[in-house]
């Protein structure tokens, strides 16, 4: 399966609503083990909310290794690629830490460390 991002949402990959549209298109094929190619030809602007929803949330149900194996990118520029990598790294880290986080403890611990 090949999906033209520009045809689907336009030249800007910015907002989570557009990311969700892409997720809805690619989730089932990826779950079936199909190779999906996202073609970013004509797309020039990127931000994290789009990729968090289009790709990051795939890791809730698909392993990072399978996402990397079956999801391919064409014509994605350096900026877009850098955002994708960060989103995958972040989603992978957060997915592996599935225990309910104690945010209050995190905040207080960071504060203690930061004000040393």
């Amino acid at each position, binding site marked *: 399966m090949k999906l033209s991002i520009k045809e689907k949402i336009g030249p800007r990959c*910015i*907002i989570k609503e557009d990311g969700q549209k892409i997720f809805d298109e690619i989730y089932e094929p990826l779950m079936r083990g199909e190779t999906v190619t996202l073609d970013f030809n004509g797309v020039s602007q990127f931000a994290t909310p789009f990729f*968090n929803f289009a790709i*990051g949330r795939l890791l809730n149900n698909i392993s990072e290794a399978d996402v990397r194996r079956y999801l391919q990118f064409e014509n994605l520029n350096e900026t877009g690629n850098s955002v994708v990598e960060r989103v995958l790294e972040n989603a992978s880290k957060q997915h592996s830490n599935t225990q309910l986080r104690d*945010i*209050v403890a995190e905040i207080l611990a960071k504060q203690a460390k930061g004000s040393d």
Partner: protein
Amino acid sequence: MSQTVIQIPRLNDYPSDFEQLFKIWSQVNDHFLDIRFDFSRCGFLRPNAVAFLGGLARLIESRMGKAVFDWSTLRDSWVRTTIRQNGFAGAFGDLSAPWDGNSIPYREDAFSDMNTIMDYLTYNWIGKGWVHVSDRLRDAIAGKMWEIYGNAFEHSDSSIGVFSCGQHFPKHNTLVLSVVDFGQGIPEKIRNFVGNDPRAPGLPADACLRWAFTKGKSTCTDVARGLGLDLLKEFVRLNEGKLEVYSNEGYAIINKSGERYENRRISFEGTVVHITLHCDENLYQFRDEAASQR
């Protein structure tokens, strides 16, 4: 109700200037007010103050009050030119039309219209020619700036939207953008999120901001998030600029020498993100662009 006159002082973008703005906010933080803003003592007005005062006027109006900027008191020619040029005066009853110059238009975004805001960032802010960047880098920087608007719309729960203004200062060779919302504020959002925890109300604002600026930290639990502020931090450092955030009583400053978080004496309900970039072309290149010029 009788009309209250608020004197607008000279307003730069130092922390003491933001304190003056937050004091004005505390004077008008009520319903059914009738406020007249007087410019007779105002000899300087930075874009952070323009965005803040514009938002404040809309906040007063949203609370069934009345806010008027008294243009007849505007004596300083630099302030007059600036706020006419950036469209602020026109947005509040002055008959002048904005024009192109060093000012970057004043904006009011009641809701998140991504394409309009991205056009503003791409063509009116970074892409206006203050600094010569490739189209590719211009697009990359505009995308990073979107993170400020994305956060404001998604997390602030501001009922009146987001207000912004910018300016190019040729003398200092800097480019400024201020984005203001009058929502709940980042520390308050975090305290509310962990509201069942007995320690929540006592969480210091500086600690909340420090946490929010850490990669991967977010109050959203459905999808892994928390990268936007970290990306902005990295960008500002690379470009030797400055990113300042005022939110409730918290203050964060990120620059090339590091990051600092503080609790300040004066608080307000909302968030101001104020970013200052140097227009030095050597600081605005992709690695391959820099290599091709050697």
